């Protein structure tokens, strides 16, 4: 733009300079007044010559070059206003309806409206300078030559000799005067002829006109060049603006697309979330995404050497079933926020270890995500009456369950055991066979209708300081107890007990 302005200024200066040169008036000086001696003949001749000269020089030549007004066309360039409106994407995940249980999952409707981009390119108004060229007015006035022969009065002497002498001197004087007059007249005539020649005037006029035309042509050329330059610059400016606008639009579109994609992904993720029915029928090693509610947690394993990240094992459940999350990536910060009832989203693989169906970390080690809002704390389901039906019990795997009216059994002595009296009376063992020590898992047995079942106080869930750990250590064979816990599985039912009440 600056360049354009400089060019226009230069053009103006040039045009003005050119105009100044060609409009300067050319004035022809009138010849000097010449007064010849007064003799009749000469006077007549002079009068005659003067008359001719007067007649010829009468014409005043006034040549005025036509005013050339060049006005460059006003260039108004207005870039098209670009209005881009990204398509409104409305994504609505299909409603998943599963017969038993009926879970309706409606992914959030994602409405993404990309911002309307209104870009108006600047209006470029380029006005070429008005070039006014006025050709010079040439006024040429031929000099008025007035020649008056001198009137001399000579007294005639009677004497003949004197007369002769006087006559001779007079003749000589007259001749001299005539000669001088002739010379003056000749010069004047020459000058008049030169000055007053019409052809010359015309020639001058043409010359001036030519100069004026050239000046005009030059001015026009420069004006055109300036105009062209201005137009080019205007085009370039418009193109630059257009490019910028396009880039801005492209960026916005990309961002909008990414935002839409993210929302789509989230929407898809939301729609990928399995209900318990889907999860239950998924194959082992299939990827799974679930939303569930924390019921209890084992200790955080910072820097799990098997995965290279912090992990935790969680007991979780929704209204339809239980999910055991084994070594799931979770940061210490999130772990601290995992309270009973907290809703979480988990991405992982379905797995099975020794009969226990669980969710393990996915390939990306996706962390547990807390979903703010609703909470759910499961009520324990009493499964005492179905304990002898393994397949029925299996349905409650990983859920919060209760056992009522169970009878504590004495622990079985290990092979070749020479257990002490205290050991023989104890109704629990450190470790499955008593090979552990304080702080290890506690194993104990309780029976119902003559069948004995094994129960565990998992030390990572309920450590030595917990009420249940202490309570189990106080159990005596024959005690009648109620229990609550989570239905863990290891080659069969092996509940992780969280509370024991002796009746």
């Amino acid at each position, binding site marked *: 733009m600056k360049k354009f302005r400089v060019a226009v200024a230069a053009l103006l200066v040039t045009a003005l300079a050119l105009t100044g040169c060609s409009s300067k008036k050319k004035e022809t000086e009138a010849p000097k007044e010449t007064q010849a001696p007064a003799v009749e003949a000469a006077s007549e001749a002079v009068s005659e010559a003067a008359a001719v000269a007067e007649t010829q020089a009468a014409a005043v030549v006034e040549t005025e070059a036509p005013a050339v007004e060049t006005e460059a066309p006003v260039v108004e360039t207005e870039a098209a206003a670009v209005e881009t409106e990204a398509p409104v994407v409305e994504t609505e995940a299909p409603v998943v309806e599963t017969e038993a249980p009926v879970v309706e999952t409606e992914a959030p409707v994602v409405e993404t409206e990309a911002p309307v981009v209104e870009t108006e390119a600047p209006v470029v108004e380029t006005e070429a300078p008005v070039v006014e060229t006025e050709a010079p007015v040439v006024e040429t006035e031929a000099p008025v030559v007035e020649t008056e022969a001198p009137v001399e009065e000579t007294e005639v002497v009677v004497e003949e000799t004197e007369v002769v002498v006087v006559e001779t001197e007079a003749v000589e004087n007259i001749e001299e005067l005539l000669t001088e007059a002739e010379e003056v007249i000749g010069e004047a005539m020459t000058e008049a002829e030169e000055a007053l020649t019409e052809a010359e005037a015309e020639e001058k006029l043409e010359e001036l006109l030519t100069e004026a035309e050239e000046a005009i042509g030059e001015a026009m050329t420069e004006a055109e060049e300036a105009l062209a330059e201005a137009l080019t610059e205007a085009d370039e400016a418009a193109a630059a603006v257009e490019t910028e606008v396009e880039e801005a639009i492209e960026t916005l579109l990309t961002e909008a697309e990414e935002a839409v994609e993210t929302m789509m992904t989230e929407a898809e993720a939301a729609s990928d979330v399995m209900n318990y029915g889907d999860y239950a029928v998924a194959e082992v090693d299939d990827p799974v995404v679930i939303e569930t509610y924390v019921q209890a947690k084992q200790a955080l394993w910072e820097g799990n050497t098997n995965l290279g990240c912090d992990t935790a094992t969680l007991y979780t459940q929704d209204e339809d079933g239980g999910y055991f999350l084994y070594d799931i990536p979770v940061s210490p910060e999130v772990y601290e926020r995992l309270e009973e009832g907290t809703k979480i989203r988990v991405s992982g693989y379905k797995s099975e270890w020794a009969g226990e169906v669980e969710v393990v970390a996915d390939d990306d080690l996706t962390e547990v995500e807390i979903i703010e809002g609703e909470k759910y704390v499961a009520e324990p389901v009493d499964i005492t009456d179905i304990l002898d039906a393994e397949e029925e019990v299996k349905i409650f795997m990983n859920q919060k369950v209760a056992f009522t009216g169970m009878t504590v059994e004495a622990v079985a002595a*290990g092979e*070749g055991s020479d257990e002490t009296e205290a050991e023989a009376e104890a109704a629990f063992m450190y470790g499955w066979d008593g090979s552990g020590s304080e702080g290890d898992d506690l194993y104990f047995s309780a029976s119902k209708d003559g069948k004995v079942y094994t129960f565990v106080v998992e030390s990572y869930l309920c450590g030595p300081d917990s009420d249940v750990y202490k309570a189990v250590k106080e159990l005596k064979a024959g005690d009648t107890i109620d229990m609550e816990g989570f239905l863990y599985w290891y080659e069969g039912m092996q509940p992780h007990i969280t509370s024991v009440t002796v009746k």
Partner: protein
Amino acid sequence: MRKHWKILILAAAAAACAMLLGGCHGGVSTTSFAVPDTFDEDAPHEITFWAKNDTNKTQVKIYNEAVAGFEKLYPKIKVNLRLYTNYGDIYNDVITNISTGTTPNVCITYPDHIATYKTGQNVVVPLDDLVGDDKYGLGGSQLKFDGPKQDEVIPQFFEEGRIDGYLYAMPFMRSTEACYINKTYVEKLGYEVPDVLTWDYIWEVSEAAMEKDKDGTFKVNGQNVMIPFLYKSTDNMMIQMLQQYGAGYSTPEGEVLLFNDTTKELLQEISAHARSRAFSTFKISSYPANFLNAGQCIFAIDSTAGATWMGSDAPLVDISPDKLVRFETVVRPVPQADPDHLQMISQGPSVCIFNKPDPQEVLASWLFTQYLLTNDVQIAYSGTEGYLPVTSKAQQSEEYQEYLAAAGTDTKDHYQVKIDASRLIMDHTEDTFVTPVFNGSASLRDAAGYLIEDVCKGARRKKEIDDSYLKELFNNTKKLYHLDQIEVSGADENSRDLGPLPVTAITLLALLAGAWVLIGLYMITDRIRTRRK
């Protein structure tokens, strides 16, 4: 307060300098242990013994008996037993307690772990002087029990405790891995069980066992579940395969050779069988013994120390009786690359002693350690599983020979599979090998197993296990186990471990370092003051 900070900083700097200087010289101690001339039996000592058992109450009982027997001989020494059921927990606890100066006195461990322990200053006691001591060493004159002489400890096992030229561990029990085979199913599939299995053989039979009936059950067992080949310790699997195929694993100096082309080929092969579900691992599925005993596995590879869990008549069972299936169990060495040149890993617990300020306490610890090598303890403990006593004195004893001869006479103390497993390592002691021990060798071992676990999971999850996958896996594994941080010790003479520096030298060096630090601090302080002015 500021003064205190200065003192602390100076002390820390001096300590750091001393550690650095000491570190240059290998295992360094300001209180290195020297064997006392005599042991003061009248002075009371209380020592702690961290023991590992195989979740086996009988082993616990034997430990307790060993403690009681020792305390009877040395009534002023009180031994506190703390029980663990896996090496990992002991390792982690020791590491934690090194920093607080509360290590146990005696500890069951692996040489790989000792290599890490001894990076601390004089944490672990070198045993060379104790072993050779006339009065209290192996077969020493002042011992109150009939312990083995040095030449009665199986030399191969004895040398396994040597790290950087020094003896840091005594062997306690030895085992290897064995393949427990459901011979009944192998023959049902139309194969014979050879004396030595090859990898080709085991893959072929395993794939054959995957054939199903029209009803979707497996032909060989009629069940819905069949994992023909299950491996308990995949780190051992990789290590033994590399050894058998002559591929690199590591150098004694700590150079990691694991990530090589042979490893890639092995992983491709293994993953192919994991994809078909003919092969799985403990970490993915569960204990091989449980599947074997339920008739859902044909080849179960586990330690000989897990023999009591294997087979229809196994004394220890983790599945309900109604799930047990009857079949004939045979024990073979792990599959081999070259059946004429067997190679199998040597493993099993060793014992190390942690240093304490009181040399008498350390000597008491050593006496107890030796007591664990007596025939009574060795024979009793080896009988709990498919272990092998580490002394020829025990192996050749009449008692132990009778024990072996009674194999199969019952399904408890003389359970056939268990004694077969013990015989396996006894017969192939010369075929056993151990991997180099260095600071980081425990991580390398974990990494070896991780490679197999990862490709198996990947294959099961329908991933393509190709070159790019393996390349990424190698990189991730190196990072995960910090293998790029292992310092390779120089193999040349100049960098050879010269053993502990004398205390006076350490003190002098520390003083020199401290002086330099003080000079430096003075100069810095002076410059700062000058600038402020």
